[in-house]
């Protein structure tokens, strides 16, 4: 039985195990129908032209998080940003782990989707925001159909989350092959602020396929900073879909650091529903071997006087492959839009590949839109400069790669996080020279 058939036929059993009075019972039922009709995306879909999921869909996944696996903090401590105080929402094989987590309901809600979907006090928020921005299509619908747990973050009007929130999904490999489908909902009401750090981490060499969907809703003047660390095992694949709706004068930034994994596909979509909105999309991809990272972005400029800033840097070594597909749509009403997009890539080896495709669809006439895409090698004269100062070639190359990625790193607002990512990058490049910032 194909994975698709298995998912479709298992859904009734899944629904039966849940409360039929759940507010999302029907949503799930409709979603599985959408998935049944559409199936998994294939290379025939324009948006998936350069990313094939075939190799990972062949595995026989366990689709229900069954047994609870326990984890000791000391075994997974290194995956936390633990030199700062944070709220933590931790899942192990798809199941919330209270022991590793630190949630709150004090002024803000930092807890689980499972609570939000089953407790009546959250129903109003769920009714208004759940599955409203997420699209009805293939993988997103599959996630909706099976949506059960994930992070639920609600920041009421005027509140500022007093510390960053870490969401970590661990996969222990206790099941042969795991299909995980986390579902996050983040609602930042007017004048609120929140910072989120998210990570998917496999702890074994068993195959893991994570199909994650996150909806972010930023009301007027809300500020949301979202950081995604993708540095997973070689058998861990991820499709990470983030749908963001912004209202007037809000600022939402998403930084994605793709440093490892099997196949990683990021769908990042912004919808601007108000004026003077700023949308920031940044990413560093640094991969080698046969790893694959695909960034598929959309910024939909719907109203006037808004901005978007995209800056994606990619470094591809050995046979690694990258995709950047950045679409910017400026509607007729969206005059005075400033939309910037840049995608710069360095191919270290001859067999590395990047497919970069900027797409601009502009229907307004008074706008400033720019896009730039470069593919090149490390700058030889810069390399010579560093070598002439006594820095060995390998370290000199590392310094240049670091400098190349720096435009993305420099806008990370949490210093300890910036430090951590800098270290991850230094480690990946294989140098130990001091990169203090």
């Amino acid at each position, binding site marked *: 039985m194909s994975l698709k058939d298995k998912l479709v036929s298992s859904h009734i059993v899944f629904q039966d195990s849940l409360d039929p009075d759940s507010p999302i019972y029907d949503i799930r039922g409709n979603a599985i129908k959408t998935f049944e009709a559409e199936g998994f995306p294939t290379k025939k879909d324009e948006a998936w032209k350069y990313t094939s999921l075939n190799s990972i869909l062949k595995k026989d996944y366990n689709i229900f998080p069954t047994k609870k696996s326990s984890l000791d903090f000391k075994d997974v401590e290194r995956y936390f940003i633990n030199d700062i105080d944070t709220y933590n929402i931790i899942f192990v094989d798809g199941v919330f782990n209270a022991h590793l987590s630190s949630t709150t309901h004090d002024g803000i809600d930092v807890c689980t989707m499972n609570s939000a979907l089953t407790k009546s006090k959250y129903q109003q928020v769920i009714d208004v925001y759940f599955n409203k921005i997420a699209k009805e299509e293939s993988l997103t619908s599959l996630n909706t159909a099976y949506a059960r747990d994930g992070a639920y973050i609600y920041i009421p009007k005027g509140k500022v989350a007093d510390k960053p929130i870490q969401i970590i999904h661990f996969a222990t490999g206790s099941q042969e092959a795991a299909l995980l489908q986390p579902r996050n909902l983040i609602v930042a009401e007017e004048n609120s602020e929140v910072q989120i750090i998210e990570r998917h981490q496999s702890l074994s060499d068993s195959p893991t396929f994570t199909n994650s969907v996150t909806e972010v809703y930023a009301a007027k003047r809300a500020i949301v900073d979202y950081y995604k660390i993708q540095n997973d095992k070689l058998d861990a694949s991820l499709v990470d879909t983030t749908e963001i709706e912004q209202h007037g004068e809000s600022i939402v930034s998403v930084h994605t650091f793709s440093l490892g994994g099997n196949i990683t596909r990021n769908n990042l979509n912004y919808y601007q529903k108000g004026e003077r909105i700023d949308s920031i999309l940044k990413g560093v991809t640094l991969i080698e071997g046969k790893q694959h990272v695909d960034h598929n972005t959309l910024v939909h400029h719907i109203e006037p006087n808004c901005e978007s800033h995209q800056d994606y840097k990619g470094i591809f070594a050995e046979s690694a492959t990258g995709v950047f597909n950045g679409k910017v749509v400026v509607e007729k009403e969206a005059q005075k839009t400033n939309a910037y997009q840049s995608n710069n890539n360095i191919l270290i080896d001859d067999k590395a590949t990047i497919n970069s495709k900027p797409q601009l669809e502009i229907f307004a006439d008074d706008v400033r839109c720019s896009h730039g895409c470069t593919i090149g090698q490390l*700058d*030889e*004269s*810069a390399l*010579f*400069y*560093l*070598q*002439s*100062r*006594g*820095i*060995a*070639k390998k*370290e*000199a190359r590392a*310094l*240049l790669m*670091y*400098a190349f*990625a*720096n*435009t993305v*790193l*420099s806008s990370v607002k949490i210093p300890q996080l910036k430090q951590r990512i800098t270290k991850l990058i230094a480690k990946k490049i294989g140098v130990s*020279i*001091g*990169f*203090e*910032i």
Partner: protein
Amino acid sequence: MLTVKNLHAGIEEKDILKGINLEIKAGEVHAIMGPNGSGKSTLSSVIAGKEEYEVTDGDIFLNKESILEMDPEERAHEGVFLSFQYPVEIPGVTVTNFIKTAINQTRKAKGLEDMPASEMLKMIREKSELLEIDRKFLSRSLNVGFSGGEKKRNEIFQMAMLEPKLAILDETDSGLDIDALRIVANGVNKLRSEDNAVLVITHYQRLLDYIVPDVVHVLMDGKIVKTGGKELAHELEEKGYDWLKEEVNV
């Protein structure tokens, strides 16, 4: 210190240096002057080991040892320093971190431990005072947004930190106003000793008023066509290069 023997070098089949001979002793300052396109910058790049140039004949010796087969970093470890005409910008790496990395990489190559932090700080303080560099400057990204003068001052600061045996200053005076020129020259003069040598490469005589050379060479069409004392620089400043062209027939 430096011996260049019958050096021929070029790029992509184009000959640029056509038989350079040069002998610089410890404690000396030599200047190489010449019109644009005469091969001045090529000579400095070839001595420092830039890979895109191909040496087709001749040899370069540092303290009697050939350095031709060495990588640029190995030459740096042996004591060659090149102050660049156009220093490269490295965003995200501060001046301090860069120089720390350079010094410790050089020490590592010599089998030494990293320089202790306190010693490093003391040295940075001393050398930055010498070049009238303030602290804020040291925490900026290397050369990013630096003015022409700041870039050159930073080059000489690096030279001061690395304490080379042979310092090559490639057009260090270009883009400098008179105050910056004075500071840079003053820095270089203070770093001069009986154990090191300086090669100043310049189009104009201006810098040589401040860094007074023992020997002046004129480079034209890839060859040294005239060698003299410091007065040769003044003569060139007055008369330009054309009279020499006629004299040497190039």
